[in-house]
């Protein structure tokens, strides 16, 4: 038999001014199962709490209802008191008599009546309450960082320097990402590789970081603090332990005509290759799709010339299982390529290039050693046209958003071109210049004022080639919409930033949500910008949306600090308000029919399909749902969906909600 204690608070005058608190206490005392009821000036005060603790002991209470302020205010306080009194803290409920009664109604019968109803309701609820215990989940203090671009590097270093283990997985043969391709960086014009490569080396040498290049995440299961991840180590065909990176293999490789990804297709590489001179690790891999040995079964030159016998054609992909407590997703971005722009030359004009290609042309380590020359004939262009918003803010092309970085890098490109060719002409067709950021607008103004780059407001309609020149048909909307035709030697399209091709499949492996452009979705656009709605998985860099380096780096550090927070204790404590599927012995007696509707609607992928097997024969007796308490956030959507009430939410059970409603109504108002 329940023995409930009811404690009605005056909150000074706040409640008692409009609610007849004595009456409420008296009425409460009459309720069945109520063993003790009292009203007091300040329940939350020390003496108030002491009263509760004493009462629990003295009257052997099995649960308490505190009629006071909003539970959002003092629930924690009174649950502690209940615990001190020796009962489970979840056997304490609050009746909100202040925010939702005394403060919103005038003193009247009706007001007091409402207060009584609410108390009665909570008394009913607390009778249905069961002991709950905070869920403790152990935390594996190793982080997985997916992607070895600047964002991934930053996150990995931050976490590793905080003394935690980090595993980094990069799909390319080297880390560095897009930043390693850049020439100089805005707004300071310092050399990208000069600031990046030291970080790359640091990652490779850090005692806390294990680096897997040429590898991809295969699957992710488990939950915050306890993820099980499978990683595929693609066969490099080169034994990394033996290889010294001497380079004699790729110098001799006969397949020399493979478009070089690192130089954005502006030069060629060999089939066995290291992507670029400062690559980390600086050891080659074999690109099997382009290797004669793997395609035609002959050649084998690299094997012959390798002085240490590191070449191994028999090597196979290897899948490794790792356990991590948190994941930082930093898979980066891609850009639209010029063939996306039929009206700008369909990628058929060699000298219409995209931003990354220009970076390579302008980079000292690039195919032209930093001299800006036309891909078609190697001439130095006298006139360059830069087209901003190429593909961005273009509903017709399916990309409505602004790519954010183009305004800045276009200004940078124009500037660099002018610095290298003082009497060259640079024109920028733009719609708006969006240069918010520290020293950003000053930078753009410098391009205009000091390097006299010509900015023309208007979109380019068409580009066609005529006698070795590119005719750019534009317009100056600031000059009475004057049509302009420029005969350029080279055109650079600031093409839109888009999500990686495989972004969607990555997201699905991780069970994180993504938008229609396949950028990964943050848990909250303002207040949780680096977390995903899957606990324990963070976002860093341009996989979330277009970002420049400073933004990517700061988000990476933010993600890292989230991970460190998670790793700050050996186990996480979580509210026990989670869903449970009813179970009894023997297991197949669960009422769950395994329709798994709950699994579909759960926004946290917290519900799993479980096969109940016969212990002896091992045959499947039944399929049922199982809640992963580590992932469940307690929204209860599954409960409302369950067709036969087999799943229920602790703290808000069907039984409780029903009795609340009945208790509310079975007395006249």
């Amino acid at each position, binding site marked *: 038999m329940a023995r409930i204690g009811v404690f009605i608070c005056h909150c000074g005058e706040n409640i008692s001014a409009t609610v007849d608190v004595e009456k409420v206490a008296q009425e409460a005392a009459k309720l069945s199962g109520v063993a003790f009821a009292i009203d007091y000036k300040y329940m939350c005060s020390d003496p108030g709490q002491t009263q509760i603790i004493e009462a629990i002991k003295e009257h052997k209470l099995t649960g308490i209802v505190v009629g006071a302020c909003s539970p959002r205010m003092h629930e924690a306080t009174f649950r502690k008191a209940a615990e001190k009194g020796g009962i489970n803290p979840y056997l304490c409920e609050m009746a909100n008599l202040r925010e939702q009664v005394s403060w919103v109604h005038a003193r009247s019968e009706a007001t007091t009546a409402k207060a009584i109803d609410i108390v009665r309701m909570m008394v009913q609820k607390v009778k249905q309450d069961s002991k709950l215990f905070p869920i403790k989940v152990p935390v594996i203090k190793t982080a997985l960082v997916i992607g070895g671009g600047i964002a991934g590097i930053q996150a990995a270093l931050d976490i590793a320097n905080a003394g935690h283990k980090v595993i980094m997985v990069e799909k390319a043969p080297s880390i560095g990402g897009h930043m390693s391709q850049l020439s100089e960086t805005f707004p300071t014009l310092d050399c990208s590789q000069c600031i990046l490569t030291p970080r790359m080396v640091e990652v490779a040498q850090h005692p806390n970081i294990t680096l897997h290049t040429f590898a991809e995440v295969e699957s992710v299961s488990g939950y915050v603090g306890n993820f099980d991840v499978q990683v595929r180590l693609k066969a490099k065909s080169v034994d990394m332990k033996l290889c010294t990176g001497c380079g004699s293999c790729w110098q001799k490789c006969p397949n020399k005509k493979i478009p070089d990804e690192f130089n954005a297709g502006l030069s060629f590489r060999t089939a066995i290759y290291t992507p670029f001179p400062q690559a980390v690790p600086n050891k080659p891999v074999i690109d099997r799709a382009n290797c004669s040995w793997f395609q035609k079964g002959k050649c084998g030159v690299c094997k012959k010339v390798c002085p240490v016998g590191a070449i191994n054609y028999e090597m196979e992909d290897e899948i490794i299982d790792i356990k991590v407590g948190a994941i930082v997703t930093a898979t980066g971005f891609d850009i639209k390529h010029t063939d996306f722009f*039929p*009206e700008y030359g*369909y990628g*058929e004009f060699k000298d219409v290039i995209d931003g990354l290609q220009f970076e390579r042309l302008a980079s000292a380590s690039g195919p032209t050693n930093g001299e800006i020359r036309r891909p078609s004939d190697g001439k130095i262009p006298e006139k360059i046209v830069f087209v901003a918003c190429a593909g961005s803010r273009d509903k017709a092309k399916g990309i409505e958003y602004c790519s954010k970085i183009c305004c800045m890098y276009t200004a940078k490109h124009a500037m660099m071109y002018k610095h290298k060719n003082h009497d060259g002409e640079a024109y920028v067709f733009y719609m708006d210049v969006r240069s918010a950021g520290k020293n950003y607008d000053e930078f753009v103004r410098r391009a205009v004022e000091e390097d006299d780059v010509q900015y023309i407001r208007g979109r380019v309609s068409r580009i*066609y*080639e*005529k*006698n070795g020149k590119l*005719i750019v048909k534009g317009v100056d909307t600031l000059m009475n919409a004057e049509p302009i035709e420029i005969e350029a030697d080279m055109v650079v399209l600031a093409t839109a930033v888009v999500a990686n091709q495989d972004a969607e499949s990555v997201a699905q492996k991780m069970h994180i949500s993504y938008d229609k452009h396949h950028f990964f979705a943050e848990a909250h656009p303002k207040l949780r910008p680096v977390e995903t709605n899957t606990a324990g998985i963070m976002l860093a860099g341009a996989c979330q949306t277009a970002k420049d380096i400073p933004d990517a780096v700061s988000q990476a550090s933010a993600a890292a600090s989230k991970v460190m927070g998670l790793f700050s204790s050996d186990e996480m404590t979580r509210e026990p308000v989670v869903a449970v599927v009813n179970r009894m012995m023997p297991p197949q007696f669960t009422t769950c029919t395994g329709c798994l509707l709950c699994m579909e609607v759960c926004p946290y992928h917290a519900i799993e399909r479980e096969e109940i097997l016969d212990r002896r024969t091992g045959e499947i007796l039944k399929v049922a749902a199982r809640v992963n308490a580590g992932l469940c956030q307690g929204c209860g959507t599954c409960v409302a969906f369950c067709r036969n009430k087999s799943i229920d939410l602790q703290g808000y059970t069907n039984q409780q909600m029903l009795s609340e409603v009945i208790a509310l109504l079975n007395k006249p108002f």
Partner: protein
Amino acid sequence: MQIGFYPGCSLEGSSKEYSQSLLAVAEKCGVTLEEIKDWSCCGASAAHSLNHDLSIALPARTLALAENQGMTEVVIPCAACYGRMAASQKAMLEDASVLKKTQGFIDMKFLGNVQLLTVFEFLQKYIFPVADQYIVNKLNQKTACYYGCLLARPKELTKLERPENPMEMEAVMEKAGATPIDWAFKTECCGAGFSMSRTDIVAKLSGRILEDAADRGAESIIVACPMCQSNLDLRRPEIKKQLKKDINIPVLFITQALGLSMGIPAKDLGLENHFVSTGKAVSCIVKKEA
């Protein structure tokens, strides 16, 4: 097999060689085209400029006739007519109120079950499969395939694969043994409906087109639109004044070129009806080596 055929006004007048050559090619390949009985004008640019309802109603009448005459496919060689017909059909199928209103105007039911074919679609569907056995000549010349506006735009009507740089006509010309050149004015406008009211504009626009074709060494220009043909052909004197130079590249209809490759005599293709002599184009032709 029988396919409906809508010549349109120009193909009965200034561009009759277009229908002449189309029919000749079709006949050669054993394809019968049945003209829609009592068809009327599509309204062209005048109708949609001055009266929107009319621009839908006029084509609607002919479309309804085609339906009543039990046609399921109608080939419309004239790019302009095709554009108007397709637009009218689209408007009626997409908006019930428009359909209702238009049916009221024309006093006929419209079901929208006739499929309209551009000249390309027709050639690809009915001529290509059998063409090779009839092609006996190699045109053996550099041709500039010119689409103009109405064959390329608007994209939802013309159904071209790459509206900015179409290749459909090139495919036909390669079959006919010509070498299509890559040029810049494929889909630029020739001045279209201004051929009489603003000859100056026609001269300017068509001039640019001819000039680019000439600069890139075209020996003939291939078109599939009567307006383009007459502007590029008929307006040479004005163009000459505009460019201050004489360009005498002949302008052939795609079906004429195809016809030549099939060994159909020039006069059956109406080749002598052009202002700019087509002799040069014809003279390049060589027998196709078996």
